[in-house]
């Protein structure tokens, strides 16, 4: 069985489109998206009147004078994983003054996009036989699960054990604590309990088991993240990295020794390592560039996964 894994696309529509095409491109039977599907930012496109608009992306201000220019700018925003919205100066100021207002708008745009992506998956992969699993990550709101659950082609993997061609995959997007207090994070003991509860449902032998846990194992090299200062700046210009993975995930891998363990969460820590017999992979993420980092893995049910490639699509 050939499995393609990508993760942390954070709202990048380019990456989602590539993900859907990855089955055909890599001849994969199963596509797994490891979490953090949703974007991080809203970008206002501001109406200056008289058919003129302005907006700022990546600190570059654009003056837009035609509908085509506005649409092209919005496309660029979407490709980067952000959500554009049209507004005027008065509405924008109101939005700024009311946090709940823009949070509401954020949620609306985010869920709207996930719904659109699910429809896109149906159109492209419906009837192809390629199975697609998504497991929202710690950055994804819980409402995302409901949308995935109602999709026809994409299957929700969170907390479940799914059977794939004689293998079983158990997934969760929950992580240990982060400095950002995101939606799905908890202390290590609770995370361990969550993992064990999910793993308990696995009936396949270790060589036919796959873990898909968003958070990477602690001190595996797949969890080296830039150290932050108290002000949330990158320490030493990002050169000081430290392991931030989960000890609970590491213990689960060490104890159960599945053939394969898939991770994401730390975009910088692209790589693979072995913990005992388990091949652990974090393909990393370059979603802002529209570059879909992933992993192609061939599973044959033997004790160790021997054939895999980290891809840069």
């Amino acid at each position, binding site marked *: 069985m050939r499995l393609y894994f990508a993760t942390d696309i*954070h709202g990048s529509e*380019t990456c989602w489109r*590539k993900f859907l*095409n*990855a089955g055909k491109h890599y001849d994969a039977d199963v596509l797994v998206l490891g979490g*953090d599907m949703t974007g*991080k930012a*809203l*970008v*206002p496109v501001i109406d200056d009147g008289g058919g003129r608009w302005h907006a700022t*992306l*990546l*600190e*570059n*201000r654009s003056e837009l004078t035609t509908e085509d220019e506005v649409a092209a700018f919005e496309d*660029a925003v979407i*490709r*980067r994983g*952000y959500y554009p919205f049209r507004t005027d*100066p008065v509405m924008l*100021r109101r939005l700024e003054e009311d946090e709940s207002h823009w949070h509401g708008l*954020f949620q609306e745009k985010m869920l709207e996009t996930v719904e659109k992506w699910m429809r896109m998956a149906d159109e492209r992969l419906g009837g192809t036989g390629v199975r697609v699993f998504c497991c929202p990550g*710690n*950055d994804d709101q819980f409402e995302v699960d409901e949308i995935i659950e109602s999709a026809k082609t994409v299957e929700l993997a969170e907390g479940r054990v799914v059977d794939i061609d004689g293998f079983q995959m158990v997934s969760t997007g929950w992580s240990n604590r*982060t400095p*950002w207090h*995101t939606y799905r994070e908890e202390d290590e003991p609770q995370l361990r309990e969550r993992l064990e509860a999910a793993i308990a449902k696995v009936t396949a032998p270790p060589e036919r088991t796959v873990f898909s846990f968003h958070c990477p194992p602690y*001190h595996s090299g797949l969890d*080296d*993240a830039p*150290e*932050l200062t108290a002000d*949330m*700046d*990158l*320490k*030493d*210009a*990002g*050169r*000081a*990295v*430290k*392991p931030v993975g989960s000890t609970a995930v590491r213990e689960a891998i060490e104890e159960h020794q599945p053939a394969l363990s898939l991770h994401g969460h730390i*975009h*910088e820590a*692209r*790589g693979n*390592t*072995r913990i005992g017999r388990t091949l652990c992979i974090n393909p990393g993420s370059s979603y*802002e*560039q529209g*570059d*879909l980092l992933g992993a192609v893995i061939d599973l044959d049910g033997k004790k160790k996964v021997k054939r*895999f*490639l*980290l*891809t*840069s*699509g």
Partner: protein
Amino acid sequence: MATIAGEPPYQERSLFVRKATGLVRGWSVHDAFIYATFSINLITLGLYIFADAPFIPKGSLLLAIILSGAYLVFQTIVYAALIAVMPRAGGDYVWVSRVLGGGIGFTLAVCGWWFINWHWVPIYANILSKEFFQPLGAILGWNGFVTFFNEPKGIFTASVITAVLAAFFISIGMRGYARLQKICFYGGMLGLLIIFGLLLFHSKSAFESAFNHYAVKTYHGPPDAYAATLKSTYHGASPLGGLAFGSTILLIPMIAFFNLWSNWGATLYGEVRGASDFRKNIYAMAGALVVTTILAVIFILLIAHTMGWNFYNSANNAWWNGKDALGGVWPYPVTLATFFVSPWLQFIVILLMSLWFFGWVGTVFLTASRVIFASAFDRILPEWAARVDRRGTPYYAILIMLGPSLIISYFYAYNSTFTSWTLDATLVIAVTFLGSTVAAGVLPWRKPEIYNASPIAKYKVGGVPLITVAAIAFLAFLGFCIYKWLQDGVYGSNNHDSLIYMGCLYAVALAIYVGSRIVRRRQGMDLGMVYNEIPAE
């Protein structure tokens, strides 16, 4: 909209960011500046290379440093732009492999950052001997210790110490190394200020007297050593204020050995938030280049003021010809500047200045470890090459950096034929930069999606992308340096045997790549899949 008096002016919000992993406020230019400053290291590389300046007759050292320092800002733009377009990528290997192809990316990066750095270990070691062991040994009166480091045994010992230190810094990880570098930076800067103060507040006659005293007392040199040194005056040397432009331009490929490395740590963690991150990278790298250039100019002016420009050139010339007044010890300007104070103060200041070496030594293996990791993750190197232990130490990567460097250091120390084979060590790194610069130049056309999604897509000069303009300008610089290095023996790098040897290194790298593709294909893996872009539509 009217602004109410007393209220801060309204600033329109252009981005609404929710709570999400990885969103950081920013990063300090100062921290990145420190790393770049260590890479174009005035004390370890600069002072060492400046001693070679008399080999280019009439070339103005001062002007060559200023001109090359200013021109190399193009290099910082090229690399800052590559980081902005493909951040977190892992540097030259990933940029070139993604833009120009895996084979060329692997071959250039492996030779330029990994294989060649085995050969840089004895070069680093040479500097350790000349700026640390020998001056300190001389002050302590350990004459045998001083001469030991001029012998093969000493060169090999210094190489082993250098390689083990660099390996240790890799093993403690970037976090520990970044902290150590900061300590070394502030300590080294304090040392440099002391040296500047000593040179500024003492006269030439005081120096002459101090030099005559310590040349005899510490180095067992001849009486009236200052005058004896001046007798070795190299008449081809340019006067300090010389403006012989043509000769000065010829001096630049020599100076490039010192100031071509501001991009050494060209990689960025965290998300690039926008154009300001591009500018910050330029500020960090170009800032290091400009500040180091200014410090170099100050140092040279102070040397001329206190030691005398003729003396400085003569001392270097005498040392190269084995007729120096310091018993075969390189006239390290730092050592000479400390002659105004007592021996134990000399010892402390030289120790302080050695922090420029100890903060820098890890760079000999650091980028190599990234190349090894990136190519192992691309499955070109075996999986074990990127393996880390429970403490995160990449023990196999350290082994394949450390082991060959020790073997090469042994041959470097004991076999003069082999020593000459390593003369092209700088050229190989410059060729790697050349590959990255070509990749940068064609990036807007080879990877339009990625380029157009980057914060630098808007920067154009006369309608041409800034990254391409900067790449062309930097290519001209690299092309000139490489041409001169190959064509003119004065730079010490147009050795025929060395070229063949370096060619063999390229052949080995290419063979690893081709062999790896064949082996992986037999295993059912097409390495082409690593780089092939998935269509988005």
